[in-house]
């Protein structure tokens, strides 16, 4: 148990370092730097930046140092929680990101929770009642979830909502709350807005998990031990839940562990379509403007949050299903 936990923690740490290096490389890839982009932007407005000023700006942001030193400088500050100043907004990065990171995680976690709570019972139901109406309905849901990329689903829902219900679907807050400070009323308003994006995000994963659960449980249900249990007169519900469901849970659980990064990824693009105040739209802006500290911080924090989220969901599953820690991961 402790060994497994230690292994997971070391792996999570390595993943975080890998993410930070990748992030830094990505941000450094574009030819030119933020100062070039900034100057070009000013020039399009008719202002001129002298070479001396440009040099001073580069020095201020440390852009004149070798890449490895820049990475070291960035990381040494990141570790103490100083993510630098957004060059685009001229404000500390943490301030620019603000609540957005937590909102991203709120949406992704809601989607994860939805997937867990929907996929498991539906998967069990459609295996036990194979070829019933409910099974076909679940299969249909599975096909839809499989075939429609979540941003397209968001787009289609948004259009249908607008066309037939006259609603403006999207956003995470009603207009009167979007700028308001946090309060119970605002939190309740958020709770009312989260389900739609969470459903959009969760659909594909749920569809996938239902299929996995159904296939594994169907395999298990044909095993002789199930017949034995029935022959001994154990109630049907007890028979199914106690033995085959537990056996079928393992593949289900090990595939759900990779769901969280996928959901976080999806939330970025769905946020752009639905206009959610998560880090998605901010990341796109930052990347276009080559605002390396802001974009880097977003990718890094998203990556680290994802690793932590995955770890938490792994530990939860381990608690539910002790066999995972014995067998390790496929």
């Amino acid at each position: 148990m402790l060994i497994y936990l230690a292994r997971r923690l070391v792996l999570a740490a390595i993943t975080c370092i890998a993410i930070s290096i990748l992030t830094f490389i990505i941000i450094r890839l574009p030819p030119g730097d933020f100062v070039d982009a900034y100057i070009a932007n000013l020039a399009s407005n008719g202002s001129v930046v002298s070479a001396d000023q440009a040099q001073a700006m580069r020095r201020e942001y440390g852009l004149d140092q070798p890449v490895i030193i820049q990475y070291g400088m960035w990381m040494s500050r990141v570790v103490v929680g100083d993510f630098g100043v957004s060059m685009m907004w001229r404000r500390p990065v943490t301030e620019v990101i603000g609540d957005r990171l937590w909102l991203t995680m709120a949406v992704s976690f809601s989607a994860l929770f939805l997937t867990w709570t929907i996929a498991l019972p539906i998967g069990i139901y459609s295996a036990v009642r194979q070829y019933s109406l409910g099974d076909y309905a679940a299969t249909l849901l599975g096909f839809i979830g499989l075939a429609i990329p979540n941003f397209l689903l968001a787009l289609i829902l948004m259009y249908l909502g607008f066309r037939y219900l006259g609603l403006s679907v999207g956003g995470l807050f009603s207009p009167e709350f979007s700028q308001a400070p946090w309060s119970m009323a605002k939190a309740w308003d958020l709770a009312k807005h989260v389900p739609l994006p969470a459903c959009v995000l969760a659909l594909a994963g749920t569809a996938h998990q239902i299929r996995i659960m159904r296939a594994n449980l169907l395999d298990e249900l044909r095993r002789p031990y199930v017949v034995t249990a029935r022959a001994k007169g154990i109630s049907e519900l007890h028979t199914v839940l106690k033995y085959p469901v537990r056996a079928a849970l393992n593949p289900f659980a090990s595939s759900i562990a990779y769901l969280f990064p996928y959901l976080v990824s999806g939330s970025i693009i769905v946020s752009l379509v639905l206009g959610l105040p998560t880090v998605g739209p901010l990341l796109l802006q930052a990347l276009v403007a080559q605002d390396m500290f802001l974009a880097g911080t977003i990718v890094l924090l998203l990556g680290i949050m994802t690793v932590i989220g995955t770890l938490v969901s792994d530990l939860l599953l381990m608690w539910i299903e002790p066999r995972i820690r014995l067998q390790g991961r496929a």
Partner: protein
Amino acid sequence: MSASLTDDRMAQATQLQLTWWRFCRHKLALISLGVIVTFYVIAIFADFLAITDPHATDARRSYMPPQAIQLFDADGFNPHVNGLKGVRDLKTFKMTFAPDQGRKLKVVMFAHGYEYNLFGLIPTDRHLFGIEGGQPVDGIFLLGTDQLGRDVYSRLIVATRISLFIGLAGVTLSLFLGVMLGGISGLYGGWVDTIIQRVIEVVRSIPTIPLWMGLAAALPNTWSVTQVYFAITIIISLVGWTELARVVRGRFLALREEDFVIAAELAGAGQTRIIVRHMLPSFLSHIIAAVSLALPAMIVSETSLSFLGLGLRPPAISWGILLQDAQNVQVLSGAPWLLVAAAPVILVILAFNFLGDGLRDAADPYG
């Protein structure tokens, strides 16, 4: 009698034949195979099937609604389209289109249209159908036009080419990476295996879309359409290889312990011979199945990136670029036909998934 005949057929059939027979039992997969082949045929003959030059803009026909081909008129069978006339509403400044009754545009097969190179080689201007002696302004707009007055139908057809082939290219690259690394991992085991497995775990626990966005945004603006195309292919395959590597490694590990592999080893066969002659045939179908399940993910990746404006850039035409025009509810409420590009995306993903499922079931003909 018939039973023993089937037995004989089964006994003599090659692995490929067995797989194919088993695959044919899966009706949905068979239909999906048909759908996919149709899509690739459309992609190959895209310019022939298109009607209007997909790049030709005309402000006078901005957001023209879809037109239908009328097969009959008062004189009997006479396929035609009614010419439309755009009138600008002076209050809202919106273009509205009314049929121009006097003008009937005759639709003919194998009409002359814009010039293109069939298969990129043969210059021609024949199209499957079009308007007889049509003016450049006239055309058949089966799926309406976009803001710049470009024909959505023709753009959709031509977009098939890039969207489908970028998937193939991406999968080829992923396959190469996946088979190499997965094979090494499964064959050698030990610390090499551990390292490769950890790398895969790390890659899989990174949220991919922010990563792709970062990589795609890093592509210089000065790059040509072709350069961006290849760069995007590389980006999407960098993430896709992990699943393939996992499948290949799993098969290698399972097969290494099989009796026939040990027998071949004892008989003194070299490692290359064992892999190519004995192991490869028995997991080839698994790889094909994994590939057909990986393809839709690639297509969605390209579509998502282009949709965000970080993938392919106009004048390239792909489904993602077409969907980019449909990003906004205001635009969609006025021109809902722009959402049509969602249909082929959904259809192709569905077909590839069914095909992959069928192939995966068929991959193990003795199972």
